[in-house]
């Protein structure tokens, strides 16, 4: 992979990123995305379908334990992937957990892409005062370490319950928690996505076809959405794929702090966290979701890279 083979490229990546060059002809001529990309797509589709089908699959309850068989080993009868300390089936929890984790990841990236992307597009397209004001806002949000900001937003938006009387939480609590985390993580991702979109929008706005559209009397809105936006999309897609991967990991980090999906509802992150105090009791409980996060993140990273190299999106914008 010999990226930036242009000998005239300045070693200064930030400047280079802003004047991100046009995709070369060869980039488009490359056909086929390779075996690994297809495996990655296959894996992601598999995970999404399984998570989607959770209610109709013949699974044990993810929340009610089989008290006769706590800490069952993997491949034991009745529990294909073992069970946790309360006898809850790991396979079932991991699949129901996938629903929460994927919903969170996709939801917050969608939120971030919609708002951050729009703000970035406007900043890059309008320039001048609009750009100064918006970029100032992005920079302030970026002055916080991301995990700390996400952590704070989640814990402030939905303080942990003071007492729990052991009753299973109502379904709306699950949905509420997911919404809060989506909102918090989405807000954190806005400035990052906005900055990338802005850089890309600036370079496309200066192109001749945009000037031509303007010369023909196209409205500003039309130029922005019909001329500039379609060209900015590949960069956003590549970043969105990486974003989903990042949020999947982040969910686990939030779970380590105890502010992700609340027990007894499963998510990949809180399954890992639930075993931190005793790793060897039933290793499957945390190894299975760890492996799932790893494989899904690997697949998303790889696909993001494929999209990036196909459309020549500069990673240095990050």
């Amino acid at each position, binding site marked *: *992979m*010999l*990226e*930036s*083979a*242009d*000998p005239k*490229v300045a*070693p*200064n*990546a*930030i*400047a280079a990123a802003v004047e991100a060059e046009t995709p070369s002809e060869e980039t488009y001529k490359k056909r086929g995305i390779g075996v690994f990309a297809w495996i990655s797509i296959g894996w992601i589709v598999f995970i999404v379908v399984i998570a989607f089908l959770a209610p109709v699959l013949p699974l044990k309850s993810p929340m009610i334990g089989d008290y006769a068989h706590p800490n069952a080993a993997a491949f034991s009868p009745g529990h294909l992937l073992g069970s946790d300390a309360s006898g809850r089936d790991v396979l079932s929890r991991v699949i129901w957990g996938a629903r929460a984790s994927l919903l969170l990841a996709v939801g917050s990236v969608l939120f971030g892409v919609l708002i951050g992307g729009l703000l970035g597009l406007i900043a890059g397209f309008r320039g001048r005062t609009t750009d100064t004001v918006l970029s100032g806002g992005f*920079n*302030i949000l970026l*002055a*916080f*370490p*991301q*995990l*700390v900001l996400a*952590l*704070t937003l989640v*814990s*402030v*938006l*939905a*303080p*942990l319950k*003071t007492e729990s009387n052991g009753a299973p939480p109502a379904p709306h609590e699950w949905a509420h928690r997911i919404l809060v985390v989506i909102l918090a993580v989405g807000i954190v991702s806005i400035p990052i996505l906005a900055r990338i979109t802005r850089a890309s929008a600036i370079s496309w706005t200066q192109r001749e076809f945009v000037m031509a559209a303007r010369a023909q009397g196209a409205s500003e809105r039309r130029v922005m959405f019909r001329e500039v936006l379609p060209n900015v999309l590949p960069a956003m897609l590549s970043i969105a794929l990486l974003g989903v*991967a990042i949020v999947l*990991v982040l969910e*686990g*980090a939030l779970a*380590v*702090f*105890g*502010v992700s999906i609340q027990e007894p509802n499963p998510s990949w992150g809180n399954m*890992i966290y639930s*075993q*931190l105090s005793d*790793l*060897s009791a039933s*290793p499957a409980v*945390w190894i299975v979701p*760890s492996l799932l*996060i*790893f494989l899904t*993140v*690997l697949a998303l*990273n*790889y696909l993001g*890279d494929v999209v990036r190299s196909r459309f020549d999106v500069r*990673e*240095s914008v*990050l």
Partner: protein
Amino acid sequence: MQVVARRLIQLVVVLLVVTFFTSILTALLPGDPVTTIAPFSSAQDRATLRQQLHLNENVVERYGQWLANFSTGNMGREYAGNGIRGTDIWGRIKDTLPRSLTLMLYVQILTLLIAVPLGVYTAYRAGSRVDDVANGIAFFLLSIPIYVAATLMLLFLSVQHHLLPSEGWVSITTNPVEHFKHLVMPVLAITLGQIAVYARLLRTDMVATLQEDFILMAKSKGISERRVLWRHALRPSSLTLLTVAGLNVGTLIGGALIVEVIFHLNGLGFAIYDAISRRQYIALQDYIAVIAIVYVLVNFAVDALYHVLDPRIRGARIG
């Protein structure tokens, strides 16, 4: 000189905005913050607490109060219950911040020690077998979350083989050997993923630099390959790496928070975890402000370093 002054003013403004933002957080708490902070308290205790937290004043006044207290180190105590003296917040920051910074420093040093040679070598041998293998491994390492690396190491090295202590912090002055033994796993857990990020960045820039005229010039003068790589090509190629290493302080603080919780290192990250789980939102505000300030200051320092590293930037500002 004027540039320095302008940057300093910018720094102060950012710090004010960032701390103001954290200050609004208590205002954002749903319902009455006092019931969240002290759920089992008498009406009188709540009134006192409300007074202490200046909740009867508006956000701006409260921020003024907070700023005055924060800058004089007079931050008060964590709420512990009626009449009980909670942990002194400033004392806790003084104890925990150095730990988090030490952890971050070790991570940065170890990462650079491994990633720089790796990046230089893969750039030098770009397209070769070694380069491909390194790229593949980088992908794998990048996809392992910090907490997964940490728990795996804990299971194998601590729980099953008892090679390393699983938790706690030992000061370097009390026992240097134990100090490093306690930090091997926390540092490694964060470093693994970072190596891949840094090495790939350096490789990309280095490949571009190696095609520049002055490298050809240096080679044609008969300077050894090694000297060209390390003395002529590395310095101009290290700018992006430096930027990212600086920006990464934020990510590393996050990573440090996680390993601090997993390995019970009792740094600032653990303090934040503790504050959240005990609903100490006022203390939380102070801890977050400290982290944000460190982050902003480090980025400021990185920006200043550019001018030292690349003579071409002196005069012309980028970004």
